């Protein structure tokens, strides 16, 4: 049967198969399918850049057009991964520059990118189209200038949440006048001070990009320029404004309002820094078409937020600050019946006392009123088991649930009990739950619930929870689909880790910081499991300068076919077999 179709036909059939999982399955059917598939795979996603090497990737897939890479572990977002840890993309770009001259897309997350690398990208790939740098760092506006100047057919430049050093030049003017291919531009992470030259370069760029559909600007773009920009790009589907403040002037308002009503395709709005509430009504005309609204920088009162949100009946995604308060969330629950995702961020995370009335009530209201709700991120200061029971009962369709009660180890504020039962109800009822973040006072019981019920859980984040090793053991032994586990400040130690060593090879990674894992256990794990990289991060100096039983600061374990990495800084030690031999 394997010979009944010529290769070209199989290749043609495979070209309709897009998902990575399906492609992987195809490649396992037989040797010839493996061969055909690898030559025609065009897209690859590598969730951990240290799990594989550029050479291995290139050897297997010689004709890639699109590469996605992730570097640092998730906790790097909260400054738990020290500067210099790694995640450098340069070796990848060097290798791809030689192997994939036809590369079109590069998507990076939490990686270190240098200006030199960006220049290399801009010069190595003649047909380069898409550059997405998500939460990356290490580059400046000079690097962006190379991209702008050299990528003739650039369609997408997305710098979402990256840390870019602004050298004050005018990199936007480096886009040649002949560049008219832009479809998506996201520079919202850039600074808040721009010269007039930058602004006019942006206006000209927007003016000559007829295909521009997504434009997210930075805080520096003032409100009085927005109307002009909108008129040049009336087909925008996604807009991120700059600062949304200006001296109150009827002309500015009517101009802006008119410009917005001309943008009939707008579906997503974001930005809204420095909002002057009086200008919010300028967007009312397009509210009914909005599916996504990001107000998480808008420091305005609940009543102003509500006036805006209640006009967006088709809203599917809302990101907002806790200024919305319980009352605002109740209004949301009434108006937005298509809501799928809600994120409520804290306006003052370090205030000892709550500065707003945002409690468990708000989330309960949304869980009651929004039948399509599936994704939640909620920062608040109090919760109860009862509220969690209610949410679980109302919304068994939840797939992502992240609750952050700001003060660690906060119990149910009414019963003063741990929140074990409440989270237990979540995992028991929400059978499709893929992502979960826990908070509040939690014992090992919650992990027993999770291990028993959370069979589809892929990512779990734990902080300041549990009593001992049993908790970790429940999770590692019970959660069949677990891929990423990140733990901080929990009394989990060696026993559970070593007993479930084999499980770790089925996961992408495990992060444990400020727990009770000893150096000895790390060494043992590194020795026993050659396909795991066991890395100790400790700023107190070499782990063998302390007793073996001493807990390490952080251990980061990930599966890899690349062997131990060679680019570790002085504060990271790999627990591979050689090390064990060297130290014994």
């Amino acid at each position: 049967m394997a010979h009944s179709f010529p290769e070209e036909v199989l290749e043609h059939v495979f070209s309709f198969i897009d998902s990575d999982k399906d492609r992987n399955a195809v490649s396992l059917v037989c040797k010839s399918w493996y061969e055909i598939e690898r030559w025609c795979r065009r897209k690859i996603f590598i969730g951990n850049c240290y799990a594989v090497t550029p050479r291995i990737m290139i050897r297997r897939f010689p004709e890639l057009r699109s590469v996605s890479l992730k570097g640092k572990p998730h906790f790097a977002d909260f400054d738990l991964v020290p500067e210099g840890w790694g995640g450098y993309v340069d070796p990848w770009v060097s290798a791809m520059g030689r192997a994939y001259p036809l590369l079109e897309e590069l998507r990076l997350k939490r990686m270190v990118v240098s200006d030199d690398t960006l220049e290399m990208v801009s010069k190595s790939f003649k047909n380069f189209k898409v550059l997405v740098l998500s939460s990356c760092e290490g580059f400046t506006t000079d690097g962006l200038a190379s991209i702008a100047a050299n990528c003739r057919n650039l369609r997408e430049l997305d710098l979402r949440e990256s840390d870019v050093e602004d050298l004050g030049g005018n990199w936007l003017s480096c886009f040649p006048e002949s560049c008219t291919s832009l479809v998506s531009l996201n520079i919202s992470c850039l600074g808040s001070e721009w010269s007039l030259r930058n602004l006019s370069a942006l206006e000209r760029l927007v003016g000559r990009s007829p295909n521009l559909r997504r434009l997210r600007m930075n805080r520096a773009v003032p409100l009085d320029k927005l109307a002009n920009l909108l008129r040049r790009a009336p087909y925008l589907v996604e807009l991120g404004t700059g600062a949304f403040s200006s001296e109150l002037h009827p002309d500015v308002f009517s101009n802006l309002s008119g410009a917005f009503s001309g943008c009939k395709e707008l579906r997503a709005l974001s930005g809204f820094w420095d909002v002057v509430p009086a200008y919010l009504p300028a967007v009312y005309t397009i509210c009914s078409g909005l599916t996504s609204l990001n107000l998480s920088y808008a420091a305005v009162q609940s009543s102003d937020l509500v006036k805006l949100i209640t006009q967006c009946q088709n809203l599917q995604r809302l990101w907002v600050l806790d200024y919305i308060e319980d009352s605002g969330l109740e209004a949301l629950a009434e108006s937005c019946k298509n809501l799928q995702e809600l994120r409520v961020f804290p306006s003052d995370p370090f205030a000892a006392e709550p500065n707003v009335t945002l409690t468990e009530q708000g989330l309960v209201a949304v869980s009651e009123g929004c039948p399509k709700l599936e994704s939640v991120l909620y920062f608040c200061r109090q919760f109860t088991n009862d509220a969690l029971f209610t949410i679980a009962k109302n919304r068994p369709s939840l797939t992502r649930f992240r609750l952050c009660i700001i003060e660690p180890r906060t119990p149910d504020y009414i019963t003063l009990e741990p929140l074990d039962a409440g989270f237990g109800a979540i995992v028991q009822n929400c059978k499709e739950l893929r992502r979960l973040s826990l908070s509040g006072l939690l014992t090992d019981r919650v992990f027993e619930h999770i291990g028993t019920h959370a069979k589809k859980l892929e990512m779990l984040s734990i902080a300041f929870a549990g009593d001992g090793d049993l908790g970790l053991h429940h999770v590692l032994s019970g959660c069949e689909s677990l891929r990423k586990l990140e733990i901080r400040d929990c009394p989990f130690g060696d026993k559970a880790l070593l007993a479930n060593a084999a499980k770790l090879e089925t996961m992408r990674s495990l992060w444990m910081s400020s727990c009770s894992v000893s150096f000895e256990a790390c060494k043992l794990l590194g020795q026993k499991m050659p396909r795991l990289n066991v890395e100790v991060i400790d700023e107190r100096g070499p782990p063998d300068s302390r007793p073996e039983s001493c807990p390490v600061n952080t251990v980061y374990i990930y599966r890899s076919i690349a062997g131990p990495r060679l680019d570790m800084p002085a504060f990271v030690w790999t627990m591979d077999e050689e090390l064990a031999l060297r130290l014994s």
Partner: protein
Amino acid sequence: TLAQLSHVCSYKETEELRQRKSQANGKILRMSSESDNSSMNFDETALTLGLPGKSRPSVGEKSGVKRGFSKMVDLNLHQKQSNDQENDGSQVEVAEPANSPASKAQIAGWPPVRTFRKNTVKSCKYVKVAVDGAPYLRKVDLDLYTSYQQLLISLESMFSCFTIRNCMNDGNLMDLVKGTEYVPTYEDKDGDWMLVGDVPWKMFVESCKRIRLMKRSEALGLGNIQNSCYNSKDTSIVIKHK
């Protein structure tokens, strides 16, 4: 004016600082809050740049920029929270000026809110601090402080081999500390370089764009240095070169 000066420097602290300075004989001081004066411990080592530990990673430009004062407080407390029993002797004491918001206990990386969110919502006035001759920059959040003294204490904790001294036109203290005297200066909104301490604190916070610890020899070019009412109660920073 006198009122301005007492706003800027506390006389009592000045006297004590001088005494400590002569006692310490050039050692790096731990700046403690007033209530802690009696338990001043010269043996406690000071202030490292970012994270506690003997084998520090090489601090590149970027890492210096990333870690501000409050980060150091975070990390110090974070260390205390961890379970390890060991006292490796390289505890970091970070200066915590009294009444500073940074002195409120904060856990590193908690709550899990990304830095750019924290910066954009709460008013944050991060400015870069450069030291002539030093290879890296640091950042301070001016909103964390309520006085020049607090700021200068924090700057001290940021760069190694720092000593703050308040001198009254004396030469003998210069001999004690064999180093180059630095004067804290800042660039204001108009792009002019001014001496730190010339204007009321709030006005300074409002107008400061970046801070530079300038070698005294270069700072003489700044006209203000002679005329500043600040001069008679000069606050300068001395950096010892290794």
